[in-house]
């Protein structure tokens, strides 16, 4: 099994965020609010099988959606931010650090 890190980063203000993996809801959080002093609202780690996966990220409170395909090997981290009317997603193999 691999680890998929989901970091909700910038721009969240009492929002709901849903992440589905291959059509299955895997992550849902409400009242998400960014701590500006860190640039992070919250983060979580999900166990997912290695290989390709279709990820869909939704923010129902803003009617925003973003789709991407990932190829998971051991570990991957998604940094999700709201920028105006868009969802911005960064992917990296190392954990995000905040200070």
């Amino acid at each position, binding site marked *: 099994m691999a680890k998929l890190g989901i970091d909700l980063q910038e721009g969240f203000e009492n929002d709901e965020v849903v992440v589905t993996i291959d059509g299955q809801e895997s992550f849902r959080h409400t009242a998400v609010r960014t701590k500006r002093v860190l640039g992070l609202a919250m983060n979580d780690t999900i166990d997912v099988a290695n290989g390709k996966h279709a990820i869909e990220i939704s923010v129902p409170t803003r009617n925003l959606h973003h789709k991407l395909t990932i190829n998971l090997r051991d570990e991957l981290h998604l940094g999700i931010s709201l920028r105006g009317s868009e969802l911005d997603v960064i992917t990296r193999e190392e954990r*995000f650090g905040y200070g």
Partner: protein
Amino acid sequence: MAVPVSGSYRGFLTAPAGASQRLDLRIDVDKRIDEGSVLQRVSGDVFSIDKVVAPGQPPKETEVYLESWIMEHPKVVANGNATTITGEIRFWNAVHPKTTATIRIPSTPADAPAAVTIEKQSSPPATYSCPPAGKFFRALHLEVDVCKSVNKEPILPTYGTHSLKERPPDLTNRTLTIERAYGEAGIEMVIRGDKRDIIDDSAASFSSWSDAELHNAMEAHFSQYQGAWPKWEIWGLLAGEYDNSNVGGVMFDYAASLGGPGKAPERQGFAVFRKHFWFDSLVPNPKTDAELTAARKFLWCYTHESGHAFNLLHSWDKNRPKSLSWMNYDWKYASKPEEYWKAFRFRFDDEELTHIRHGNRPSVIMGGDPWSSGGHAEAPPGSEHLRMPPGAMTSATGDVPIDIEVSSQPYFEFLEPVSIELRARNLLSIPINVSGTLHPEFGNVTVYVRRPDGRIVEYMPISCKLAEDNIVELSPAGAKDSSDRHSRSIFLSYGRYGFYFDEPGQYFVRAVYHGPGDTLIPSNVHRLRVGHPKSVEADRLAQDYFSYETGAALYLGGSPSQYLEDGMNTLLEVVDRLKGSLAAAKCAARIAYGVGRTFHELDEKNIVRRKRGGDTKEALQLAELALKVFQAQKKPRHFNIPVERIARAKAELLLRSGNVTQARSEMTKLAGYLHKHGVKPSVTKKIEADAAKIKAPKAKTARRSRSAPSRKKR
């Protein structure tokens, strides 16, 4: 070659005479600091100095911060004799007339003071003599404590800038510590080496720190925590792990606008988490790339977190996502973090340096912003509405002779008139005089209100009253009969620019007392809340309530003027429809006396004529209604002054209607009620004395009509 003049200067006002002021001057026009940028700026912080001299005791000095300014386009002329700098200066807060400054710094001797002249339109110039105070622009102390679980070297960071190959090719080779990092920014940071607490975090039930726990630790261990803020002091904690293990460091003491608790003083402390994955390879003498990367990150973390204590936001929060600054994240700068390190020169960017060196003092100094607004942090885009009126950021240090306290009930109903109690309390062991009026109408108190949307406004009364100062002598501190204090109620709901508390939400109120001489003393920041309408009725009434006519009627204490008839009708409707509520009671109390008074107006010939006698019966009903509600409150402390006011008004109304005995009885009852609720004896004794003086009013003799003056005999 001209001798560099950059650095700080500190001196006192030399003209005009009468006032006592200090100027902290910062000149940033040539290079004096290695690796430091030259920003071509000049800035100043102005303080008022007030001295209290008690017989047989050393003088006590209070220093009150007034305001800061910046010169953004200095013109510098240097010759062999002196360097002269001129330019227009801009004040950070409030509206000022066009102001210019001229600064002359003699080339010799080396410690020659800078002669500063500040000229405003229509005002005599102010001159200061400011001897040099060093090459840095500002200075502070850093105190570092450590958790037992991570108490091993390195506690503080050190990193050679050429240690790793990812660096700008022309980067100067030097060893950076946090002190040197800030030194290059123009800030003298001195670490309190004589103090290092080891905090035992070994309890089995404890694994990670929350913001609340960090703040608690700071309150317990920061040697500078107690005492007056703001001050140039920061606390740092080398801790184990944060609640979120992805967080390597945090400035946990942050403003409401950034999602923090928003309780001043703030920006006093930060933490670095030694168990974070960034520092897995951190060792005292790093040699491998992994160890050197950890050392570099350790330095970055300390400098970044303390940067937040200076009120610096992250680079991307300032629309500078590509800034090569301590305040950026490497992974935010580029998809490959090494791109950041290849270009980063281990510095703050110029805008941040301008803030740290020359920024508005309250927005830089730790604990400086009494409102915890945070909104002026480097003036992010869209923050123009957060500009402050003059004096809103006043702060005092040193031996303050008087404590000025703002208090009120913590919650006001929607439509309830808002008043605060302002109390002056003597802190000295000798008697001291204060202005007895203590009211913005007399110009000796300025009140500031921070509204729910974050705007801070100055309460401006409608009336401006000129009078001989009514001086009250406060007994020495600790007087058992509470004669060391004097209170006054101030109505704030309505003023020159309309209603000040017309929206539901959280408000903050602060006052600055302008005492005799140059005395300037700020109060605490008091928090209160205005509730939402509890009924559709109240919501509907708001449409008529928040109008000029109603506001003016409230401000004037009730008025039978034809021009305010609609306002009075609205207030009477509030009293009737919201009966039993504090909103109704306060409106009733506010207008009762005006309803009961005789009113004169101008007739069609512009002659003052009596419009009507007072409606004593209605006024007494209003007074009784208000008194009943006030006296039924569970926390009577905040209603003592309103009770006294309305009871006195009721007594006067009874006296005017010929009910002498009842008037006297009302006053006696009032004294008893207030005594029971802990009001100071001098107040209740005065009420009793006033009760004893009540006699039937003299019958008025017929007055000669002004409209028919007697004719002189020819």
